[in-house]
Each structure stands twice: as C-alpha cells, then as structure tokens.
C-alpha cells in the first residue's frame, strides 16, 4: 500500500467521522503517514457528513479525497454523489439496509452489507459504522486485531470504556459477514 484514500459518507450521526478516526489511528499505530479531514459546519447537524482519510507510506499531500480508492456509503445521496468518483479498480461498501439500489459501475469491487439491520439485531445499536469498518478491513486484508484494538482505545475515551467491547464486537460481525 503506497497510498490509499478513503471516503466515508452518509448522514450526520451515523458515526462516519468516528470510523475515519479509527482507521487513521490504526494507520498511525502502524507507523504510516495519515490525515483525517471531516466536512464541517451546519451539515454536521443532521445533513450529509463525510470524512476523508489518507493512509500512505509517503508524506500526505492534499488531505481532501476527491477520487477515493475506497468509498463507504451509508445513504443514497452519498452513493449517488460519489459513486462515479471512485477510482477504477476501487472498492465501494454499501449499507444495503439503507440503500436499496445497486452500484451501477462494473469496474469496482462492491460489497453490500446490511449493516444497520445487523447492528439492531446484534444489540450493538448504532454501530453500523463499525460493522462496515470490520468488513472493510477484512476485504483489504488489513484486519490486524492488535492495531485495531489499540486504535479503538485511542478513539474511545476512558469515560466510555464500556463501549470498547461493543465496538470490537461490531467489527467482528462485519469481518465475518459473508456477502
């Protein structure tokens, strides 16, 4: 992996900025160059939200991801908006419990995960984002339990330590999801 650019997109409140943060910290722990850039402003409150993450062996240049290698789409407007931007040969992860349509392109790898429904069923409430993250890392063959765990600890404050296990569990669910 020389440079990989990720775009997480969906509604505010789906935990996309958090997913991006976990991924960035994982990269940092693995001694890569990383950047994490959220969209900010009024759209934080309920509108669309996205965040750019770049993980690279080289120093990161522009931190804004326009043509992602990986798109994680958690609502239809995001898929509509970014599907075409994904690099040829890239990856699109779709939360198929929220997006009913299929990806139209045939030059990218697509994974459909019923993440939001799974999260509800497994009692991990709002952690659809982490289910997708688990799936993503497993697809990339980057699911390193040690660094994933360390990254989660970095991103979850001690006050919410009880959330650590839920997050781990959600990521495991995603990792083992066949689809």
């Amino acid at each position, binding site marked *: 992996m020389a440079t990989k650019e990720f775009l997480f997109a969906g509604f505010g409140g789906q935990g996309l900025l958090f997913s991006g943060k976990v991924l960035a910290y994982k990269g940092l722990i693995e001694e890569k160059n*990383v950047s994490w850039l959220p969209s900010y402003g009024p759209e934080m409150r309920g509108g669309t939200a996205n965040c750019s993450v770049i993980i690279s062996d080289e120093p990161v240049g522009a931190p*804004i991801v326009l043509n992602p290698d990986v798109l994680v789409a958690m609502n239809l407007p995001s898929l509509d908006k970014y599907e075409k931007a994904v690099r040829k040969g890239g990856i699109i992860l779709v939360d198929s419990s929220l997006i009913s349509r299929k990806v139209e392109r045939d030059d990218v790898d697509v994974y459909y995960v019923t993440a939001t429904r799974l999260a509800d069923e497994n009692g991990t409430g709002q952690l659809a984002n982490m289910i997708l993250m688990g799936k993503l890392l497993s697809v990339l063959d980057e699911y390193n339990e040690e660094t994933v765990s360390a990254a989660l600890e970095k991103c979850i404050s001690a006050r919410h330590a009880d959330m650590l296990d839920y997050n781990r569990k959600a990521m495991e669910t995603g990792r083992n999801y066949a689809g």
Partner: protein
Amino acid sequence: MKGNEAIAEAAIQAGCRHYFGYPITPQTEIAAYMAKRMPKIGGTFLQAESEIAAINMVYGVASAGKRVMTSSSSPGISLKSEGLSYLAGADLPALVVNAQRGGPGLGGIQPSQSDYFQATRGGGHGDYHMIVLAPSSVQEMAQLTIKGFELADEYRMTSMILADGTIGQMMEPVSFDFDIKEAPAKPWATTGTKMAREHNVINSLYLNPELLEKTNIERYKKYEIIAEKEALAEEYLTEDADIIIAAFGIAARVSRNAVNEARANGIKAGLIRPITLWPFPEKVFAKAAEHAKQIISVELSMGQMIEDVRLATQCRIPVSLCYRVGGMIPTPDQVYQAIVEASEKGGK
C-alpha cells in the same frame, strides 16, 4: 490531533496562560480546548462579549507582559482589526490566529485564503505589519504557534497564524518535542510601579506629528531587520524547475501532489511554499526567477499573494494565477492542468 487543537496545546506549552475568544466557525476547537485546559493549569479562559472585547483583553494582558492569544475566523478578524492596530501602535507582543473562511461579508464557513492582504498589510489602520505565519500541516500549526510567540516577544509585535478551515479541522500526527524560548524580561510592562520605578505607559497616541513620524520610522527599521532575518519558505524540487508553483497552507499541499504528477509526466515543476507571508520570502522567489520560466500562484483567493510574487520577481518572468474561491479548494488535477498549460506556452 486536530490542527486547531494543536495550536491550543502548543500555545499552552509556550507558556500562554491567557486566552480570550468569541465563538465562530471554523476555529471553535481552539476555544473549547482552552476552556477545558486553562482552569486546570491556573490560566484564564474567557469567552468575551465580542471579538472586539476579546482583542482588547489581549491588549490588557500583553500590556502586563504576559504571553496571550486570541483566535477567530475572517469576519471576526475584521472586528479585531482595530485592536491589531492598537497592539502595533503600542508595540505589544501577542498571538492571533485566523482560521480563514470564505468572504467577503458573512461569506461561508469553508476554507479560504482571501484574508492574505488583510493579514500581510496589517489589517487595521496605520502603517504597520504583523508577522504572518502560514502553517500547512498540523505539525506546523503547533510549531508555528510556538515560533509566533517567540517572534512576538523578540520584536514586540503581533504574530498572526494565517491558517484555514481545512488545516484547522484535519487530523494528523503531531509531535510536541519543542525547544521553547521563554518570554524575555519585559521592563516596559504595566505590572505596577511597586514604587520602585517611574510609571510605565502603554500608549499609541502621539499628538506631536514629529514624534509620531519618528516612532513609525523606528518601527519600520525593526521591520527591515525582521524581513532580513525571519523570511522563511520551503522549496520542493525547485532547483531545476521550469515551472514553479507558489502556494501556502492548504494550497501548497494540493500543489505538491500536482508537482509530483507533473514530474511523473516529464515536466520539470517545483514548489515554493512561503511559511512566513510577512515578511515575504522575496529572495527565494528572486533566485527562482533566474532560472525558471514561469510561476503559477495557486491560491484560495482571487489573486492576492500573486502581487507579492510579482514584486519579488520584479515581473522578470510571467506569473499566472490558478485559484478557487468561496470555500472551494483547487484540485491537484486543476493545478496539474495549469502546469501543463504553462509548460506548453513556454515562457520567458
């Protein structure tokens, strides 16, 4: 760590124990960080009633000789401009952060570099300058904050961190392993006479025009020394470059990608990234103009820094503009296309 938080933490490490601010997007993380930390380390965090009040509280602490800062974003900096002029007129050291957003007016909340003129020409009324530092990474947000305090104290003037929403919001690893110069003694400060000296007066009023002229000329002699000693730029692949990009902050990061792309396609491109916008790194540009064929100024403005690039190169080679404004950011591809175009045109 977020860029804005890096500024706040660096300020604390530099010994700043007084922060005054007023909420405005996109720099509120600085205030939030200070609100959390200052009470725990015996410092002052105060949310002022306005930007104007905040900068005048800064003026008060600076008068009393302590390291002090405020932060805001473009519309708020306009309000602070009165205070910036008074700080300059009274020769007070302070640090001001501008996380620029699109303008004019209320503009937008997305990143911009359109306060370049305001910052490098002083911003408020009267003949004066501020030291203007332009970070382009989270690490530099921290590093230049510390440098800003040090230079402010050394030269008794305001340092401004001219950042933008992107660098403020983005997270990157940052190391706080700094060798920090402590604030020097400030015998001029209004700390109470303790009946042991004549009274100190912090003032910018000179009703005698001869005295005001003399004071201004003295101040400009100081500016000359700063211009000579403190101008700073990073050069990337400029040595043999035909096309040179001039860009700072977020625009420089985008441009770096474009330069790499150009090199991969056999175009000799390079990048000069001014780190100090005032003083402007004129010599670096003058030297570049000796061998380069063209310069492209990449900005998040309608073309502001380009004037300094032209002055520094004395228009010896063509200087063109590549820009996005209103909160939009040029893409690496847009910059690359500009390089290709310039390279086809030749130059000189």
